[in-house]
């Protein structure tokens, strides 16, 4: 269980907090979508939940963050890394840049944990298999496509065996094929029981993948509910979020006088 209670965060040098009064629990195995307009506070919430803010990015945190019942305040960052992993938009900047193969790249995290080589290899193989990318193992990370690179990034996080995975716009820089690859991988991860918090602009990716959607606006959670109902909520546009295409199509049909409600496949 990942718990954020009364969380607020103000970056160093800024007068006002970026997020306020965040209360959020993500149960083990739950897949939660996080949506909101630009600058709404999605990325900051992700950074706080992963411990990188204030662990690596200076600022002032209020409230409490607990992971599996353990209060994480003051814990070193490497203790977060085995409990919660975080991935960002651009696969190119998340790859270490120091490894010669995808296998070495995925193995980097377990190696950093000081695990015996045999366990590192076993975790690496398992992470690649979980995403179905064993065939990339010998490839040079720098030469991967965007979608493949993002899968390698996610595999690198999975090799740390975190109970929770946070992905901040994982498909923002991917083409449709890359988005499809990552979407399928996330569905597989969800089915395997990994808890996911996915911040995304593309609500199509979240539609049908998430069981729950959180809407953040102006740094505050303004809606937290079942995915289908939240993505059909008419206020979504007011919060600066594009509804998924099936909802937009249904709305367009309705305005033409056709009573339509499009179910997920």
């Amino acid at each position, binding site marked *: 269980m990942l718990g954020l209670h009364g969380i607020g965060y103000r970056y160093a040098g800024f007068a006002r907090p970026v997020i306020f009064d965040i209360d959020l629990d993500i149960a083990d195995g739950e897949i939660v979508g996080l949506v909101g307009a630009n600058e709404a506070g999605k990325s900051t919430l992700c950074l706080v939940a992963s411990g990188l803010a204030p662990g690596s990015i200076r600022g002032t945190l209020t409230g409490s963050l607990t992971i599996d019942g353990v209060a994480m305040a003051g814990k070193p960052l*490497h203790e977060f*890394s085995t409990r919660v992993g975080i991935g*960002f938009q651009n696969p190119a900047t998340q790859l270490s840049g120091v490894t010669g193969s995808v296998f070495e790249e995925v193995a*980097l995290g377990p190696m950093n944990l*000081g*695990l015996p080589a045999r366990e590192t290899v076993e975790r690496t193989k398992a992470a690649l298999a979980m995403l179905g990318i064993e065939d990339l193992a010998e490839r040079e990370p720098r030469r991967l496509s965007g979608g493949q690179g993002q899968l390698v990034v996610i595999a690198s996080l999975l090799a*740390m065996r975190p109970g929770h995975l946070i992905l901040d716009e994982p498909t923002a820089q991917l083409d449709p094929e890359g988005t499809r690859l990552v979407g399928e991988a996330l569905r597989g991860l969800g089915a395997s029981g990994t808890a996911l918090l996915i911040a995304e602009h593309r609500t199509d990716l979240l539609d049908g993948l998430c069981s729950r959607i959180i809407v953040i606006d102006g740094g505050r959670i303004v809606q937290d509910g079942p995915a289908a109902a939240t993505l059909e909520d008419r206020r979504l546009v007011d919060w600066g979020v594009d509804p998924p295409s099936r909802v937009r199509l249904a709305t367009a049909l309705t305005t033409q006088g056709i009573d339509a409600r499009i179910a997920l496949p």
Partner: protein
Amino acid sequence: MPATPSPYHRLNPLTKVVIATVGSIGAFALGGYAGPLAIIAVTLGLATVAGVVRRLTRASVLLSLPIVISVILVSVFTRAGTTVLFVIGPFDATLEGVDFAAQTVIRLFAISTSIGLFVLTTDPRALVLDLERRGVSPRFAFVAVATIEAVPTLVERAATIGESQRARGLDTEGSLRARLRGLLPIVGPVIITSLTDVEERSLALESRAFSRPGRRHLLWAMPDSAPERVLRWLLLAALVALIAARIAGV
């Protein structure tokens, strides 16, 4: 483990570092003709074994050429001597100057081939991970490899940004002034995007326990045989003896 196409490539990286160091400092310390020429001969022989002799020769000539030209100009025409070979304007080219320039050029070539052979036959990751295995901090290892590996990335990015800027009318051809003026719109974005990348990469690495203190268990190690260890110590001992002899005036 990186591919190792020849027996010389397969040597432990530290052995190749020692060979390059002894070759470079040895050529400088030996002076004269015979010593540096012997070093060049051995180095080119090793390069032949490694299958890089053409690349090494070309790279060494190209790298040492600017210094060689300045050494020749300065030494031949400004070094005092008694045997004047020919005169150009106010400058006398002396036999002593030519001799000094020739010795310096041979030393420079010995140094550039020694270092070049190491560079052409050693994967930087293999060297740094070998050093980490010997106790060097993983942070140092990462910074060293990242610095080396960043070069091709920066070159690629500069090329991409350059093409984009040219597509928008930036003039990077023509006179030196035009080229210099065209440099800023390329260098600026390269630096800024690199800084952004560094921030994101450091966050991504933190989420993979990069800051955890303590040793790592590496997945592979370059082989290091007893004969190689003996060779390293012998070469270093020979270098120390040579320097000591030169200091003593032998």
